[in-house]
C-alpha cells in the first residue's frame, strides 16, 4: 500500500530534466530579459525569470528548490540593475516557495491551472516588489496597476508558449 501513498505519488509526478536544461534555460531567461527590452522599448511587459522560476518550481514540487531557484534568479536580476541587490530576490524567493508548495497539491499537467497560477504569482511578485521598494526602502516608485496587470498577462502569454516547449525537455522513463 505504500506505493499508493502521497510521497510515492509526488515522486512519480516530479519532473526531471537534463542538467543542461537547469543551467541554460534560466540563463537564457536572464539574457533575454536583459536584451528584449532594448528591442521592445517600454512595451517589455514580461518577466522571463519569473516565468522560468514558476515553471521549475511547479515541476519539481520542492519548496526548497523553488525557494533557492527564485532567490538566485531574483538576485541575478538585481545584480544586472543598479538597484540594491535583494529587491527582486525577495519577491522571487517567495514566489518560488509558493509555486512549489502549491504544485504539491495540484495537477501540474493542466495547462490552464499552470497559466492561471503564473498570472497570480506575477501579481504577487509585483506587489512584493512595490512593498519592498516603497515601504521597506522608502523610495519613490512610479507604480501603475495596469502596467503590473499587463506584465502578468505578458507572463501568462509567455508561459502559454514556453511551458509546452519546456515540457518536451523533461526526462521520461
Amino acid at each position, binding site marked *: 500500500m505504500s506505493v499508493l501513498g502521497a510521497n510515492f505519488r509526488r515522486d512519480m509526478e516530479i519532473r526531471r530534466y537534463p542538467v543542461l536544461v537547469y543551467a541554460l534555460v534560466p540563463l537564457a531567461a536572464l539574457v533575454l530579459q536583459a*536584451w528584449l527590452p532594448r528591442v521592445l522599448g517600454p512595451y517589455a511587459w514580461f518577466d522571463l525569470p519569473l516565468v522560468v522560476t514558476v515553471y521549475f518550481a511547479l515541476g519539481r514540487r520542492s*519548496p526548497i528548490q523553488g525557494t533557492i531557484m527564485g532567490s538566485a534568479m531574483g538576485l541575478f536580476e538585481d545584480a544586472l540593475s543598479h538597484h540594491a541587490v535583494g529587491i527582486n530576490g525577495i519577491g522571487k524567493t517567495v514566489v518560488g516557495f509558493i509555486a512549489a508548495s502549491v504544485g504539491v497539491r495540484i495537477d501540474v499537467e493542466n495547462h490552464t491551472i499552470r497559466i492561471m497560477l503564473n498570472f497570480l504569482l506575477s501579481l504577487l511578485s509585483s506587489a512584493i516588489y512595490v512593498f519592498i521598494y516603497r515601504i521597506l526602502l522608502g523610495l519613490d516608485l512610479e507604480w501603475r496597476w495596469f502596467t503590473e496587470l499587463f506584465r502578468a498577462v505578458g507572463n501568462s502569454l509567455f508561459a502559454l508558449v514556453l511551458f509546452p516547449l519546456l515540457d518536451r525537455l523533461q526526462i521520461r522513463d
Partner: protein
Amino acid sequence: MDSFFIRYRNLLVLLAILVAQIVGLAVQVRRPADSRGSLDPKDSSGVRLIRLWAESLVSPAEQGIHYSKLGLEGMWLNYLNLRHVREQNQDLQKTIGRLQLEQAALLEDARQGQRLQALLDFQQKYIYATLPAQAIGSSGSDQSRVFYLDKGSSDGLKPDMAVITADGIVGKVRDVFPRTAQVLVINDQTSGAGVILETTRIRGILRGDAAGHLEIVGILADQRIQPGEKVLTAGGDLIFPRGLPVGVVEKVVRDPDRDSFIDIIVKPAAHIDRLDEVLVVTSTEPRFSPQEQQDLATSENLKGAEAEAIKEQAKASQIMAERLPGLIDPNLPPDQQPLLDTSNPNPVAHPPAALHPDRFSPGVPAQAAPDTQGSSKPAEPATSPREKQDVAPVGKNGAIAPGTGPKPASKPAHPPKPVRNP
C-alpha cells in the same frame, strides 16, 4: 528536535534566505543626507562582486545575440544597398571633397578658438577624444534605467565618463567591468547633470523622475521660461562637457513641495529609449597632433613677439615725451607755463596779424559783413534759411547775444557764402 527541523525545513530555508536578503538590503542602503528618495549609488565590494558575476554570465550571450543581429541586418542591408551603390559612391566622393574643404576651414577656426581660449584663461572643457560603443543590453527592469556597453576597462573606460550621441547626452558610465560597462541613463532617479537654458541662461540640475521623465528641479518661478527653449549642459558637474544639447523644454509645472519654485519637464534630445551606438567621452583635455602643437607654439611665439614690440614702442614714446618740452605743465601756475616763456629759444609761432581783418580773421567776432559796395542801405543777406539759422543776431556793440548764437557744431562750421548783389 530533529523532527522539528525535518518537518519545517521548507519554511526554515525560506526564512533563512529571506532574512539573509533583508539583512543584505539593510547593509546596502546608505541613504545620503541630501537625497530625495534615492540610494547611495556606490556599491560595496561584496555587491560589486555579485554584479560582476551576473555581468560575466549574461554579457557574453548578450554580445553574441547583439552581433548576430547586427550581422543579419548588415547582410540584408548590404544586399539592398548594392542596387544603387555606384551612384551613391559618386555622390559620396563629391561630399568627401566638400567636407574636406569644410574640415580645413573648421580646423583653422578651432585653432583660433584654442588660442583665444588660452589667452583668456578659460577653463571650459571641450571634447577631444571619444570612443564609440554599442549598447548590448539593459537591466531588464523598467525601474532601473541602465544599459550595458560592449566596451569596458580594457578599452579605457572609467566610471563617470559622459556618454553621448550626436543628438545629445545620454548618461554617464556608472560601473566598469573588464569588457563591458554599465551606463546610468540621465532619466534615472539617481542620475543628475548640471544644465543651463540656452536663452534665459538659467541654471539648474537635471534629473529623472520615477516615471522616467527628465526634469530640472529647484528653479525659481520665471515667466521667461517657455516650452521649446533649448537646454544645454552647463559643464559644472565635471562629467558632461559644456554646451552639449540635452533637450528642449516641454512644459513648466509648479514644484509640489515648494510654492515659489517650478519644475521644468524636458524632452530629451537623444533617443534614450532606443540606443544602439553611443560615444563615450574619454578625454576632455586638449590633445593635438605634433604638427598642431607646433603650429600653436609658433602662433604663441608670434603673439609674444608682437606684444613685446608694442611694449617697446610704448616705452620709446614715453622716453620721447619726457625729452620734448611740454606746452602745458600741470604742476606750474598759469602765468609760468612754458607756452608763455619768452626765454624759450623756439617759441610757439603765432599766426601773423591780418593786414585787413575781416570776419574770417582770428580774433574778429563773427558778424554779418555790411555791404560797402553799392547802396548805403544795408544789404539783405542773401542766405538760405539754413544759413539764417546759423547767423547769430548781433548786438549794438557787435557782441553776439548770449544764448542765441550758433551752437558749437560737432562738424566744422562752414563760412557763409559771399553775398552776391545783382
